[in-house]
């Protein structure tokens, strides 16, 4: 009986741990489309130093150029995106600044400076929309999700599941501690299952957030200028990328409304 139970537990743990991996794979495959191949380290260091120095001297456009060049080599650099956001804000490009901050948030979700700057710059926006979709009540039980990245979530799940399986293995080799191992194993399996489900939710709900860069823009029902205007947004309004088709982007805002907008009016990093 015990063997049967343990075998089932092993299979269940393996399945649960594989799920977040699948979710992480999706995101990684998305990222793989982005430019890759790091510049030499010294080139990055030079750009970083020049960006900081330009910012300090008030040459914000120059700072923007330097930080943007760093992102061409690797777009997933949270700190570079953060500094780019600051430079864009100082250059009075509020919409793009927010887009850079939202991108930085994907990689630095717990950074207090980033949170403060997003809150600060959002005060200058007119539409006062949220930059995340509302969660279903049951999803709110996964309270830790906004605080961690998808990779971190996958690490946590794999780590806890691995420890649970290791303890289970230990119980097989040392039969005298089997009762204690069962209890610990059950607890860790439950935590691992919760983490795995959380990772899957995070993977499925992954959205690329950006912001409106024009002073005011009409959102159309279809991808042409003649299509009916569904609603209007103003500079800095957070929007989520849904689809791209030529010169048009389908966006969705936090209250669920969708529409098409010309690419020049929104920015995603």
């Amino acid at each position, binding site marked *: 009986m015990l063997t049967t139970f343990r075998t089932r537990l092993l299979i269940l743990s393996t399945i649960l741990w594989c799920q977040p991996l699948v979710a992480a794979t999706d995101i990684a495959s998305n990222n793989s489309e982005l430019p890759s191949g790091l510049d030499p380290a010294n080139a990055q260091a030079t750009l970083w130093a020049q960006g900081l120095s330009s910012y300090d001297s008030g040459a914000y456009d120059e700072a923007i150029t330097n930080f943007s060049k760093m992102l061409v080599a690797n777009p997933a650099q949270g700190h570079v995106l953060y500094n780019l956001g600051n430079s864009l804000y100082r250059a009075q490009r509020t919409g793009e600044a927010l887009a850079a901050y939202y991108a930085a948030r994907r990689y630095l979700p717990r950074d207090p400076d980033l949170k403060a700057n997003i809150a600060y710059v959002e005060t200058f926006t007119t539409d006062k929309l949220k930059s995340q979709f509302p969660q279903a009540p049951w999803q709110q039980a996964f309270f830790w999700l906004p605080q961690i990245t998808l990779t971190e979530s996958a690490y946590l799940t794999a780590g806890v599941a691995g*420890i649970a399986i290791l303890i289970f293995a230990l119980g097989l080799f040392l039969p005298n501690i089997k009762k204690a191992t069962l209890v610990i194993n059950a607890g860790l399996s439950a935590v691992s299952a919760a983490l795995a489900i959380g990772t899957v939710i995070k993977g499925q709900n992954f959205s690329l957030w950006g912001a409106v860069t024009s002073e005011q823009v009409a959102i159309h029902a279809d991808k042409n200028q003649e299509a009916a205007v569904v609603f209007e947004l103003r500079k800095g309004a957070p929007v989520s990328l849904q689809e791209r088709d030529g010169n048009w982007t389908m966006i969705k805002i936090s209250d669920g409304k969708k529409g098409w907008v010309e690419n020049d009016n929104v920015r995603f990093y």
Partner: protein
Amino acid sequence: MTGKMHAPIGIMFTSFARLGAACRQGANRFALLVLCLSSAISTAAIGGTLSGTLDKSQGNLNDEFVYTLTAEGNEIGDIPEFPPVTGLRIHQGGTSNSYSNINGKVSNSYEVRFILEPEHAGTFVIPPVTMTIDGKQEKTFPLKLDVTKDQVKGDTEPEVFIERILSDDTPFVGEAIVAKTQIFTRVQFSQPRASVDPMTGFQKIEIQGEKNFRKAVGAFTYNVIELAEILIPSQPGDFQMPTFILQTVIPDPNAPAARRRDPFGMLSGPRGIRKKYRSQEKFIKVKPLPTKGRPTDFSGAVGRFQLKANLSAAEIPQGETTTLAVELVGLGRLKGASPPKITLPDTLKVYADKPVEEERIDRDKAIGSKSIYKFALVGNKAGSFDLGKVTFWYFDTDSGSYKQLQHNLGSLVVTANPQFQQAGAATDGLTTNKQAVKTLGEDLIGLHRNADYTVDHRTTTADFIWIIGFPSLASLCALGGLIRRRLAQNPQQRHQRQRKTKALRRYTQATATAIGSNSQDLRQAVLTVEKAFKEFVGDKLAIEGRALTTAELTQQLAAIGTDPAMITTAQKVLNDLDQVNYGGGEINNSRFDSWLNSLQQIATEVDKLC
């Protein structure tokens, strides 16, 4: 004034004339019959009348005129639409209907009132109104109505009038002016209803509340109700202020004194007369801001302003903060205007605070504004630094020209601080700056300077290896443990292990079968239970249970640490069962149930122990 046509009267008079002639000629009874018949026809025909009346035939633009259409007859057709008259606004003012039956003669009277409001002065002709009464088309006479622009003669001091006052009727674009509407009244009015059309080309700010005062005009003292609003022109040009219209009910001067003292009609029934009052025409000429002499860094502010500035400390140690406060105050709007220009030396770190903007709406001075701009200045290098000056360009409405406000900020002395230099070497002087900004809490937090920018936050191959690798290794360990365990057991051991695992389930199934069969053969059921219990103990202890005697069984139970009281119970129950099975002992359902319960408890305990 009445416009009325009574068509059947002629027929009636003709009948009476003929009757008189017939009598004079000594006509017979047939003539009398004709008289009665004619009389009856005439009486019936009298019911069909239509009349239209006006309550007054002349008045001024402030007056309302009531046109009453009265229809009388047996069968009254649909009420007609009032014929349109250019320059008169018409709406229905109510209807009344009366019905009478005198000696079998039925009569209806229908009255409709139309309210006529003149839109301009002049003479208006109200065309005839046509209506079907008792199957015939009846129509009223046309009526004439004279409307004058000003008060009618003899009414030089009106009971109510409205004035609109502008603080400036030739403002510049962006200049805030006060527009007041004063309602003068020397009578008590009721049911007031004010309306004013929207005004284009101006931003409007309502001033809440009204001001009440008394003012003498001519021979009368009026109560004045003053409403006010701020107007800010957004484009140049000539504009007419929309007419302010007040509709209200005032006491009827022709009504008895008791009724005039009761304008609300609480005591004396229907009250005064409805009147409409309009403000005089008022024009505003909005002047554009001159392009000549407009500075390139014009802030956009229009009004009259003053500039002040001060430093919280003129001397600070290196790395410390001083606050520069620049205050703009004056009459006019500062919201939306560019901030003052300040050029501070590069040797200082400058963090701008979020500006504090205050606005005060005043019914006499329009808008009073105050904006405070604060800057945290951090001295990174020792020395004395000239802070330059702060400037602000605005358009002065008094002189009609652009003016520059200027304030010299003096200099800031930064004294050397060795501690700051040590900290600066480690942190690039950011700790102080960042803290200063966080304290202000109203600006961006600075750059991430010492962060590891080389970190690739994507899910990399290394991440995959770790995420897959660790649980995979753990799973391999677990799998190894399972295989090892399986290999360590021979088939007999595995069989014994399986029997041990399923022992309690087998025992429970066996007792359930026995309980099901006890109604037919209770002794057989007892035998089944005893056998099942012994087999259960045997499976648990990996021995041949069926062959166990009671003594051996109790010994085995004691060996695994079973509670002595439970062993005693087991011994007693098994002896009883033996007696029933082999000695023909007494048996009934009650005893059977008791044995079953006892054995179940013992089995559960043994299952826990093994």
